[in-house]
């Protein structure tokens, strides 16, 4: 039952975090600070069951992610089982550790789409941000292999202070790599990014210039590449509808099998997450305490309750509300109407030149 008694929506997407192992150390990684060890990872047979249950629940697309999904030796078997379940398969990869031979086998088995991340348009800076020498060159080679196999390619460029001046060059790089879609994804401050916030945070002037630039790049490259932008929400006036609303559109399965409403949900204390090892995905979607904790809008305080955007953004992000106010039910303080909005404005103005705390297991 939904908390508000209405019929439950059906999820459309499933983020499958196959492993937390990753050769890169990006300081804005969305994985939690406490990473799942290899010994706790779900086996391929369990993933196959999860994918069948997901399709029966209404899920259409599965995002095979991590960590670096290619760190799993059974990636091909896992991808094929998602395809067999009728799901659209999107491989989200760093490009490092994914051998050309494996990619070829994945293409043959029906992999639908690849998304590769890039850290910067300048090689030395890109490798520094990734914390991995040679990452940039390997990513470019991988992208060429993807395009040669005729698999559609999205480039995901994560934007922060060290590369925000090069949005134009990043879009040019995505075009040169043969991508048909590029995400200009401003860092969201959860997990490792929250830890590195002051080292990553761009200034307001930089953000405004970048947002304007995306608009003009869209006009310039219309018909050649789709430019999607994830807004830099510490500099926004309204919050994002996190994952399209809690328990409304998507679910996230961790390497060890816990099912979360979003990748950062474990940062909220007191939520009970059920595991695919003990429950079916349908049971978890409909009945797990974590999914029902913030479904609907009934739990929201003022100013959300009387706000005309209540069903647009659902009061914003629960994880961010907790991270910044200590109360997961609060209005996301990114919202200009939040009584805590001043805190976001203050944090957005803090830029510190200090070394990154790289994501390591």
């Amino acid at each position: 039952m939904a908390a508000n008694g209405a019929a439950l929506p059906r999820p459309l997407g499933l983020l499958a975090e196959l492993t937390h192992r990753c050769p890169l150390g990006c300081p804005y990684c969305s994985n939690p600070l406490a990473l799942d060890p290899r010994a706790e990872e779900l086996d391929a047979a369990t993933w196959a069951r999860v994918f069948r249950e997901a399709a029966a629940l209404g899920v259409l697309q599965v995002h095979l992610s991590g960590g670096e999904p290619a760190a799993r030796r059974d990636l091909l078997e896992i991808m094929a089982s998602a395809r067999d379940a009728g799901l659209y398969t999107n491989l989200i990869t760093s490009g490092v550790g994914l051998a050309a031979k494996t990619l070829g086998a994945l293409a043959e088995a029906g992999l639908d789409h690849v998304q590769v991340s890039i850290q910067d348009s300048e090689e030395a800076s890109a490798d520094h941000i990734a914390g991995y020498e040679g990452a940039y060159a390997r990513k470019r080679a991988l992208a060429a292999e993807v395009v040669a196999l005729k698999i559609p390619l999205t480039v995901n460029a994560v934007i922060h202070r060290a590369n925000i001046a090069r949005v134009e060059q990043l879009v040019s790089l995505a075009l040169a790599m043969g991508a048909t879609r590029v995400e200009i994804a401003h860092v969201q401050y959860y997990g490792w990014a929250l830890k590195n916030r002051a080292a990553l945070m761009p200034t307001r002037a930089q953000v405004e210039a970048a947002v304007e630039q995306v608009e003009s790049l869209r006009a310039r490259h219309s018909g050649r590449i789709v430019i999607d932008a994830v807004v830099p929400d510490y500099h926004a006036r309204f919050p994002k509808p996190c994952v399209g609303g809690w328990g409304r559109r998507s679910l996230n399965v961790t390497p060890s099998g816990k099912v979360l409403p979003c990748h950062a949900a474990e940062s909220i204390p007191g939520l009970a997450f059920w595991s695919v090892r003990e429950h079916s995905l349908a049971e978890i979607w409909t009945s797990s305490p974590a999914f029902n904790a913030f479904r609907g809008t009934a739990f929201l305080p003022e100013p959300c309750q009387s706000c005309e955007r209540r069903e647009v953004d659902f009061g914003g992000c629960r994880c961010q509300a907790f991270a910044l106010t200590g109360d997961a039910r609060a209005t996301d303080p990114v919202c200009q109407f939040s009584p805590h909005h001043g805190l976001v404005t203050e944090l957005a103005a803090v830029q510190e030149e200090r070394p990154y705390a790289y994501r390591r297991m």
Partner: protein
Amino acid sequence: MTDAAPGITADTRPRLPRGVRLVHNEAQGGWVLLAPERVFKADAIAAEIVKRCTGEATFAEIVDDLAKTYAAPRERIAADAGALLRSLADKKLLEL
């Protein structure tokens, strides 16, 4: 046959590009067209049209087949199918 829509002639052989797939999902109540990070619900008629976009059949053959299967006027089917295929092509969900 005159062009059913801009860029679509009797000889056009429309097909779904790699990365775009039409699938049936019971829980979502029918056919959906899936593309990178995008999902489009397809009604029964749209699904019947898209299913025939194999890259083998010409637009004229697709229209003939639909007209026969649904015992409907050919002109109207050509207009409807042409408009649908044009809009899908504009969204890069179809190759002409």
